[in-house]
């Protein structure tokens, strides 16, 4: 009897294992022609380009082909939080390649969606090569700085966060007015799980990108992500809302806001007039520091009014 029971156990184990593997890989594959799946994942570890970019990674100097089409609701999927939070979902390029090839899995634990209309979502601008910006660089220093940013973007994609941070420091030294570099710094620090530092740089990016609303929204969206990862859902939701107010199609913000709809405040629709005792827009956040346990959300007003 012993060999038979052993065989049965082995068969059962193998079946479970293969089922687990197929579920995991299918959860992480981007649908053909769909957007980056990672925006639906709860954990930033599975978010950046290295992990979950579509199989056709855009790199050619002539200009990258962006993923065509927009996702329909049926394509929406999310890795389960436990899967996303597991060490195996970290930024390994090899894991990224295999994940990118598997079919999408059904989402779980998604809060009720907010109806944000039929606006087509935009691809994440900071994932795209910076060729167009390079071509339009206003001065040589900006061009040199952006090239280093592009290098850093690829390093982030490849999981080399420390290298990216070093290069971005160099980029800023060459052109301190290049606020785009701060967006990538923020992303790199999110991936290093240093959310406080990420928020510092993303805040700087947002302050300096007033003339580029799309990128400003990108910075705010990543702020939302950083807050979310740091366990501050209210601040995260507010940041996503700010991003959407500027660029309604920002996908990171859309999905993030959807995910956190349960934490939205009922009264934060309009920009309040400043009153005595009320914080002025632009004052430093008075909420708990990132990483601290989420507590009673402070009364903050939304930042910028919508641009359109």
């Amino acid at each position: 009897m012993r060999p038979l029971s052993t065989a049965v156990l082995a068969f059962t184990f193998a079946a479970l294992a293969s089922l687990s593997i197929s579920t995991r890989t299918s959860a992480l594959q981007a649908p053909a022609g769909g957007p980056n799946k990672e925006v639906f994942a709860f954990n930033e570890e599975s978010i950046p380009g290295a992990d979950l970019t579509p199989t056709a990674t855009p790199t050619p100097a002539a200009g990258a082909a962006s993923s065509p089409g927009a996702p329909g609701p049926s394509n929406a999927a999310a890795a389960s939080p436990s899967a996303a939070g597991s060490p195996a979902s970290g930024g390994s390029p090899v894991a990224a390649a295999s994940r990118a090839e598997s079919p999408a899995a059904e989402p779980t634990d998604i809060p009720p969606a907010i109806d944000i209309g039929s606006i087509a979502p935009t691809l994440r601008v900071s994932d795209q090569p910076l060729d167009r910006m390079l071509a339009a660089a206003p001065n040589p220093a900006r061009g040199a700085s952006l090239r280093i940013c592009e290098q850093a973007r690829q390093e982030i994609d490849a999981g080399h966060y420390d290298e990216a941070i070093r290069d971005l420091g160099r980029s800023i030294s060459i052109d301190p007015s290049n606020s785009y570099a701060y967006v990538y710094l923020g992303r790199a620090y999110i991936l290093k799980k240093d959310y406080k530092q990420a928020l510092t740089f993303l805040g700087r990016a947002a302050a300096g990108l007033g003339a580029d609303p799309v990128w400003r929204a990108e910075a705010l969206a990543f702020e939302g992500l950083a807050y979310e990862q740091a366990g501050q859902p209210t601040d995260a939701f507010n940041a996503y809302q700010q991003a959407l107010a500027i660029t309604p199609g920002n996908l990171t913000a859309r999905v993030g806001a959807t995910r956190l709809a349960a934490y939205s405040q009922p009264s934060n629709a309009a920009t309040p007039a400043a009153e005595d005792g009320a914080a002025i827009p632009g004052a430093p956040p008075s909420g708990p520091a990132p990483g601290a346990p989420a507590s009673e959300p402070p009364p903050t007003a939304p930042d910028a009014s919508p641009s359109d």
Partner: protein
Amino acid sequence: MFKRILKIALLVIGATFLFAIPPTLYIFISYYHQLEAEVVARFSGQRWNIPSRIYSDSLLVYPGSSLSDVGFFQRLARLNYHRVDAGQVATRGEYSYDKARGQLVLFLHSFAYPYRNESGEIVQLNLKGESIVSMEDPATHRPIYSFELEPELISGIFQGDWQQRRLVRLSQIPPAMIDAILAAEDHRFYEHHGIDIVRTIKAAWIDFTSGHTRQGGSTLTQQLMKNFFLTPQRSYKRKIKEALMAYIAEQRYSKDEILENYINDIYLGQRGQEGIYGVWEASEFYFSKEPRDLTIGEMATIAGMISSPNRLSPLKHPEAARQRRDEVLASMLQDGYISKAAYDVAVAELMHPREVYTENNDAPYFVDYVKKELSERYPPSVLSAEGLRIFTTLDVHTEKLAEHAIEHNLSELEAKHPKLLRREEKDKLESCLISLEPQSGKIRAMVGGRDYQQSQFNRVVQSKRQPGSVFKPVTYLAAFQETLDGGPQKFLPTTYIEDAPFTWEYGDMSWTPNNYKDRYFGHVTLEMALEESLNSATARLANDVGLDRIRAMAAKLGFGDLPAYPSIILGGIEVSPIQVAQAYAIIANDGLQVHPYAITAVVDENGKVIEGHEFTAEQVLSPELAYMMQFMLEQVINHGTGAAVRTMGFTRPAAGKTGTTNDEKDAWFAGFTPDLLTVVWTGFDQKEVLGLTGAQASLPAWTNFMKAATASRPPIDFTIPPSLVDERIDPLTGDKAGPNCPMSIEGVFPVALAPTTVCPENKAGGAVTEDGHAATSDLPDAIVDPND
């Protein structure tokens, strides 16, 4: 009788053998073992103390750069690149410059950066005038978007003498180099056992017949033993010891091991205080090449120098070096190391005298600062002996601009104000400068005094002086912070305050700050109060805001816990210039604090990065608060006490503050563009009265330095955050100024506090003043004699 004598003789001989030789033999064997132990210990342990080297930052070169603005040719000279004719660039370390065709071709050195190795590529720079239009690989025409010019060696850390060497394996040296050395120094190296008896006897005979020690007959092994253990003194005793040690070494170690030690050990010249040891260092120093890139002639030159490096230096004595080179080549030919054809080519190589940059203590104050920092983390035995490479943030070109600016400024001041002249060096007028990038934190230049040789006291970091009015922005920041926090009082740049005699009562004391020359201007905006550095208005503002808020703001900016008395608001404390720089950097960097730093990376002799720098920042002030202060400080330079910056021709967007202490002993200027911040202090170490304001004593040095240092950077403006607006308002009503308003001043406002209604004076056809500081009957004229 004869038999008896013979018997005694035999007895003596027998006794000698029995009693004298064994002890002698014993002594000799003991001595041999002692020498053997020394030889083994030396070969087995760390054979050399490899000094640490301190490098500057590298330079990224890209199209749009101007060669003159970045001091490109001076950098090439310091890096020992040498110029050849157009079309002749063939090896690393060479460049050609065809000005007529607008082409510069550069073959970069290989360099081991902290995180990568660069093998050295050829770059062609296509120029228009001094500007780089494009760059390409001259062979393939592949565009090159940027390249790095390697860091410059600025100093070393060593004990005793600076013996600079780079350890290499024998396999890393071309065989022809080894052949040249053997041909020059020891033909029979592979035949003898450490001592060449024939050569030794010959040398001894020459010494004997000449009556003194003239000729060395040493083998390579003997030379190595002499260098390892013995003095250069020529004596028979030393020669015997040397020969014995050489024999021992040959018994214990292979020929290749001995040769490898030799090529790393030999002394081959001097660069300033730095001794050049080993063939690798010699190759780079004399020919700006790695050994693999040397020609046969160049190898023979280096080999020929071994016997007398300074007398046979190809740089200083090319003719003597050439003659010796030819002797070595002849030996190589005779020994069969090279063919006749190769010999003919080698002897035909020309040897030109060449200037070599020998300064190896650039930026001495900065180097001291770095060494002090390193000494807190590494023991001296590591720093001076383990061949670390320390990469710093210093830019040598910027440093030289700073040194020149300080030196020139002091000369000018002493010429213009002879009362400032002092006879004793230690009493002379002093000045210091620190320049850093606020966004990255990199310290780009540091000048700690007028003459390092006279005084190594680094005033940038070690001196504590009263900052005077450079401290005033702290009060205004505290006031604006209260407003942004939603406090009951609303302080904005356009808020009015009274500039009139004022006494501040605190406890049982009182304090009455006076304005410069006791001039008061009544009702002024905060903007004007800071522009003109009005003490009374600032004190009144501080009284309204509260000392606690001001002290908290000062602590945020890095001034520490200040005492709670009112005079601190006018700079009645002691701070160092680097503290002032750190505080102003926060303002310049939109509220982000990036700590100033000097060390980028520390790399061990194996190329492993043992210490790096992580780029981090902390949001100390909100971007809005920082921008409001940037705006205020811009007005100081555009209209106020710092206006001389503009009259001296510095036109870039810039902000700054003058500072003079009440007793006129300290003169400051702290200012910044969006990408570079510089603080200058001038005064006497003995705290004598200077009698000059910050605008007179420090501002000129700041301006001259910044004009040159920012020339290579594109002009950029300060960026207003989206939650602020820049508005012109009617100063009387506070309403928005319309196009027809008779007068207006500029201000920045949080969006929620910005005026929305147009001033009632906005009538068609009315006169409009463009200059917001043009006086009305309620606004004072600009002050001619600045009160700091």
